[in-house]
């Protein structure tokens, strides 16, 4: 017979064995009596294996990246403490930390729901304007006046498009 299973959270002998299917994936957890108590596993109303797995996934030993978010100064140590990120940019900064967790946490790893169309159009427009303005600056600097004129036209067209909705009301 195989040696007795150890508790996933400490190293005592596991006496509580749980199986839960989350998103068609079987998750198994083995716990000792006291960890099971502490995690509320014995109380079926308060217990969700996914919560437990989530906390386990946030275990400090599983953290490997050593970056700091440029936008907000958040570090992975902060994430370890809070289980929350500092700003939206943190998802890019700590992508190697978060990506492996998503699989356990969610049904899939890619968004298939609503898209904020208006927000995105505005952003695309804004990004394009910034790009054109820098191209214009470059063209003027290097005395490529034909290009500069073309950029200027495009910029004024874009700006008109942005302002149109306002003048409509």
């Amino acid at each position, binding site marked *: 017979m195989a040696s007795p299973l150890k508790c996933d959270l400490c190293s005592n002998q596991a006496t509580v064995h749980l199986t*839960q*299917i*989350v*998103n068609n994936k079987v998750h198994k957890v083995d716990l000792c009596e006291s960890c099971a108590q502490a995690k*509320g596993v014995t*109380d*079926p*109303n*308060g*217990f*969700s*294996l*996914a919560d437990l797995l*989530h906390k386990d996934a946030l275990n400090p030993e599983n953290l490997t990246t050593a970056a700091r978010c440029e*936008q*907000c100064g*958040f570090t992975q140590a*902060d994430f370890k403490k*809070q*289980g*929350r*990120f*500092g*700003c*939206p*940019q943190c*998802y*890019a900064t700590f992508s190697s930390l*978060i990506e492996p*967790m*998503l699989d356990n*946490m*969610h*049904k*899939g*790893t*890619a*968004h*298939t*729901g*609503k*898209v*904020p*169309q*208006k*927000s*995105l159009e*505005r*952003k695309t427009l804004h990004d394009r304007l910034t790009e054109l303005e820098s191209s214009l600056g470059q063209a003027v600097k290097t005395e490529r006046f034909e290009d500069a004129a073309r950029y200027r036209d495009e910029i004024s067209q874009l700006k008109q498009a942005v302002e149109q909705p306002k003048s409509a009301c």
Partner: protein
Amino acid sequence: MTIASLLSTPSELTDTASSKCAIVLMTRIRLARNLAGRSFPGWSREAQRAEVLAVCREALSTTAPMKRSVSTTVADLSDLEKQILVERHLISRELSGSKDGAGVVINKDQTVSVMINEEDHLRIQVLRAGFQLKKAWSVINALDTELEERLDYAYSARLGYLTACPTNLGTAMRASAMMHLPALVISSQMEKVVRAVNQLGMVVRGLFGEGSDASGSIFQISNQTTLGESEEEIIKRLGSVLESIIEHELNARAKLLETDASKLYDKIGRAYGILQNSHLLTSTEAMNLLSLLRLGIDLNVFPEDSRAVIDRLFIEAQPGHIQNVAKHDLESMQRDVLRADKLRAEFAAFAKPTFIINGQN
């Protein structure tokens, strides 16, 4: 509109006309949204939070559903007002205890509330009496679209709406229903149901009280995951889980009537007697008694038109609501006296029970 006048207005849940479904008391959908390029509330300085609060309140004030609404900071609310809003499910306990820069905007009929600077910049919530997942989704979806015209959301094409906690990523949507499941509780089947529902990726919680305390046999069932499925898919899946829980509850009721009708009717009859005659009632006991009377309505012991009274009292027997009527501070013992007084008065004129045993009166 002021917060005081809002609190004295019947809410979606306390309005006597809005009770519609026997087993699903209420449907609720919540969307988490954040502004691009700004730190999440828990990682923001006071000035940043104040800025987000101002930007969000301004954007909300011009949306159609919030034209007639109350917009307030949490700091401007008294402890009692906060408690009443929590009891009406309009703000969370986290928001009521939060630091500077938190706020809430609530529409007049109290079906829409938007918390600002809770865990995320925006927590938009739509609440409906009865089983109305699709209706709630169409309302919240429209409001979210209106807001998105005014605010730049933090969004990633691959991860969806970016939230402070990675467990909310993607749709950032939590859809839930509050269900009355007395027969499953009486026949000790809740544990089994919770396990089955968990396996389907849904979460079950007791509604009143903290944690898993399920006084009144009222449970909240919601989706666990938010990434990898569209909003419509989540709602459809939750809807079919709810349907199957309803079926189990109805079966459990039929079984109890078949095998143990006297025992069940005894519980209902005693609950009726206590509500008419007691002089001290804790809120937990009141919830449990009201729950039995509500079951009595479903079993035709009491007429259907008395359901609205029970659903209203589920909210009005909560500590904050009792305190509010008293207009001065109460010890919990005094609250229990007042609660019993209120319930005696309400039940003095309540319909008499009619018990049908073996098909006869």
